[in-house]
């Protein structure tokens, strides 16, 4: 009757010690621990794994530290479009949403698709219309804005018009566009 939860908050070449001093690392580690605890709490009470991962991911979506929910990155037009999916290993039942930006917690939308529709994936306006009808918490897209991510977009787009400073590996790594 053992149980366990594992989480991630993203992988990247920008995740290097020179970009993350001890203080910043502690901020990230505390938030990861909060997400782990939220999921573990569900499992400890005998709850389902599908509910546990939902609670853990909600904590990370609500934090501006990670590229999901609040703090999501921006597309080339300066907007945020979020995607999410969820899957139950017992029934192989699954739910997914793509290209949404008015649902506060995209993982809840994916769960709603899985539980409340006969589909696996819904996208864009169609997805948002159903989520609103099903009573999911909707927010103005400005809720997801963070200046960090917006500045990242401006930096990337600025670099596209300038010769990239190839001597600085971190800048180079941030330019995944050739």
């Amino acid at each position, binding site marked *: 009757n053992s149980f366990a939860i594992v989480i991630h*908050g993203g992988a990247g070449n920008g995740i290097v010690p020179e970009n993350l001093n001890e203080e910043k690392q502690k901020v990230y580690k505390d938030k990861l621990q909060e997400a782990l605890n939220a999921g573990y709490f569900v499992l400890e009470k005998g709850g389902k794994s599908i509910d546990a991962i939902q609670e853990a991911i909600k904590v990370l979506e609500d934090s501006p530290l990670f590229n*999901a929910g609040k703090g999501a*990155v921006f597309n080339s037009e300066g907007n945020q479009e979020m995607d*999410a999916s969820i899957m139950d290993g017992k029934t192989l039942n699954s739910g997914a949403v793509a290209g949404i930006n008015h649902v506060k917690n995209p993982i809840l939308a994916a769960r709603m698709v899985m539980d409340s529709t006969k589909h*696996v994936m819904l996208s864009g306006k169609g997805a948002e219309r159903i989520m609103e009808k099903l009573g999911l918490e909707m927010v103005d897209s400005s809720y997801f804005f963070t200046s960090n991510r917006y500045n990242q977009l401006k930096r990337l787009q600025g670099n596209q018009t300038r010769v990239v400073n190839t001597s600085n590996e971190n800048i180079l790594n941030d330019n995944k566009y050739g």
Partner: protein
Amino acid sequence: TVGAVAIDKQGNIAAGTSTGGIANKKYGRIGDSPIIGAGTYANNITCGISCTGTGEYFIRTVAAHEVSNLIQYKNTHPMEALHEVIFNQIAPLGGEGGMILLDKYGNVFWDFNTKGMFRGYKKSTGDNVIEIF
């Protein structure tokens, strides 16, 4: 991108992934995170997986399902399966990223070919680990 995989007291596994995608992506671009079998997969027979990285390559290699298949049909060790897909299938195409895996015995595995990945696990055995690099 964020993700989670859990196994409950009934032995059921679930996996989930949520993301804003890639910075400066084209309008309408969708990565692997919402695609079952690519960025997210769960099957009580083998494991649960959540991926993060340059989604296009995780889609093309059907990464999460590929790892699960290696375990299920070739009896590959989960760590080896992760390494095979990330380093021998995704990396040669130019992709980068990482995966977390929880198998049906409650064992945790993760691997990535970038410089860091925010990750952690907590088990009923008392283990509680959080790592970044």
